[in-house]
């Protein structure tokens, strides 16, 4: 009896399904190619497919955190995060290179570049927030503006060139430090997740965001500034995109306006959904989104490892996504339960 309730508590937990899905993806690997889980040590850092997943998934995790809040508070998605990543990367490289196409030392202090990039990311987010919260434009349409303009702005900043920062320290954010067992991006994403978690749990912001997302009218009447909350989530999402942009830029020690964060917005939204969050706003599970992000990355890395051609990967991705979301579907579960229940009744009647 007690066991059953424990099982039920575990299976009923909101993170259960997302975790199961991640486990299934990993398990499939174990069967197909056991060396997926082989981890060796190179230069004092761990090395292997699993580490790749953790490493490459970092930007997605960071974006998913911001996206979760946006989805929760405004019942809409921010499709401009990929473009904002490019903008942040561009401004950072522009400042550090002083306008040159390629430099071997910083033209300006590193901190300056990073701070301005993050501020600009937040400003882009704030612009989205202004459109959504103040002008009441539907989120997807509001963010369509920066989605369209973002890469243009990034190109404008870098004058259409890929700007290289060939300074070893610049690669640290997206690389690894010997002595640190895991790549740096993982720690960056960890920091973002912890920061967001503390912000949401130590203050009542999390509650406000959910309330506004579920019923903005009622929230206003209980004294929550709905539009301010929505605005803040977008600004925060922009900030997250800025951080992700810096990591992505550091990986290639350059700003590639066309390709930094390309199509990342879709994966970020997908991560939120795979984490068991409703895109209709309201209740959110931050950890679910994080797990969702790793699930997507695990899938991508797996498919690469299996040698699936990159332009056919989407087919497999689609199939896995459909299976995962179907598994999480309330309706399907109900249907199974009913089938199962009737069977049980029949059995008991026989007995």
């Amino acid at each position, binding site marked *: 009896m007690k066991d059953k309730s424990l099982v039920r508590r575990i299976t009923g937990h909101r993170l259960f399904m997302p975790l199961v899905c991640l486990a299934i993806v990993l398990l499939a690997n174990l069967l197909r190619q056991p060396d997926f889980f082989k981890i060796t040590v190179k230069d004092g850092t761990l090395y292997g497919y699993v580490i*790749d997943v953790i490493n490459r998934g970092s930007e997605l995790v960071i974006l998913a955190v911001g996206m979760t809040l946006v989805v929760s508070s405004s019942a809409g998605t921010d499709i401009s995060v990929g473009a904002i990543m490019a903008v942040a990367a561009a401004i950072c490289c522009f400042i550090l290179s002083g306008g040159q196409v390629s430099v071997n030392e910083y033209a300006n202090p590193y901190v300056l570049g990073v701070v301005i990039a993050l501020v600009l990311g937040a400003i882009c987010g704030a612009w989205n927030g202004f459109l959504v919260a103040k002008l009441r434009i539907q989120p997807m349409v509001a963010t369509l503006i920066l989605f369209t303009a973002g890469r243009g702005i990034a190109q404008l900043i870098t004058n259409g060139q890929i700007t290289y920062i060939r300074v070893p320290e610049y690669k640290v954010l997206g690389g690894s430090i010997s002595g640190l067992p895991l790549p740096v991006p993982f720690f960056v994403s960890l920091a973002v997740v912890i920061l967001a978690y503390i912000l949401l749990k130590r203050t009542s912001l999390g509650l406000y965001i959910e309330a506004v997302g579920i019923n903005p009218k009622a929230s206003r009447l209980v004294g929550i500034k709905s539009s301010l909350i929505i605005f803040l989530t977008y600004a925060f999402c922009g900030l997250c995109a800025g951080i992700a942009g810096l990591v992505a830029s550091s990986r*290639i020690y350059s700003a*590639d306006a066309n*390709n930094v964060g390309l199509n990342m917005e879709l994966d970020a939204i997908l991560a939120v959904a795979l984490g068991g969050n409703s895109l209709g706003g309201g209740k959110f599970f931050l950890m679910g989104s994080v797990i969702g992000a790793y699930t997507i990355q695990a899938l991508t890395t797996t498919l690469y*490892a299996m040698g699936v051609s990159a332009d056919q990967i989407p087919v497999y991705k689609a199939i896995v996504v459909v299976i995962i979301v179907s598994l999480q579907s309330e309706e399907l579960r109900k249907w199974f339960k009913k089938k199962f229940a009737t069977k049980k009744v029949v059995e008991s009647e026989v007995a």
Partner: protein
Amino acid sequence: ADNGDSGDASDSGDSDLITVGYAQVGAESDWRTANTESFKSTFTKENGYELIFDDAQQKQENQIKAIRSFIQQGVDYIVVAPVVETGWETVLEEAKAEGIPVILSDRQMDVSDESLYECWVGGNFIKEGEDGGHWLEDYLKEKGMDGEEINMVTLQGTIGASAQVGRTEGFANVLAENDNWNMLELQTGEFTQAKGQEVMESFLKKYDDIDVVIAENDNMAFGAIDAIKAAGKTCGPDGDITIISFDAVKAAFDAMIAGDLNCAVECNPLHGPRVAEIIQKLEAGEEVDKIQYVDEELFDTSMDLEEIVKTRAY
């Protein structure tokens, strides 16, 4: 220019300027930016041209729209760097009906009627691929490895892009002549550094003994270099892995000078002057060749790269 229509741009203002509409692909790479710059600096008012520039943001639909718009604006010449090779019949016929000559740049067009365009200017991607292959043959011979089993992988460009198709095909031609060459896997890195790096990481985990990496553009080669280093291996002339790349942008010279990259096959983006030459010929009523290759070279670490890079425009 001849006229007939009151709305034509050629009639208004400086009627002695030749109006050229240039439908560019976009600004997706440094190569492309250099290509655009070459056109903008060639077709200036001082040189007797008026350039109407259109950027298609990598979308064919947009280019078709732009060409239709050029026709309505009554330009004298239309230059197109097609996003893709296919699907131009209808709109080119519209241009033909209006009597506007069309010149292609960079990529070719697959049309049933060759008279729909005047000529094509661009690099020879197949030759680039072959050049890369032949360089490798020589290089291996030099190192005395010509008899050995050589394992290689390819980071392909965006599948379907002319550069990808041509370079893959060209290299495959050379590959077929060398029985000891063993192509382990081809995978697309979509012409980007980040993807190139990701794919290379995956290759390195799968195969322990990669000798050669063919990167179908420089950016992917940079990604591959990082991945190789992260895996604790070395590359370049003194390293475990030989890397051949294409395009030869300035950053590639930096990589070769740094000793990370072995060889870069040039893909020349400076088409503007060549197109201007052709237009002058057409204005003079002369015939022009249908296919016009621009000159392209190959660079490797045996050359005096420091000097060469100073002369490079892109």
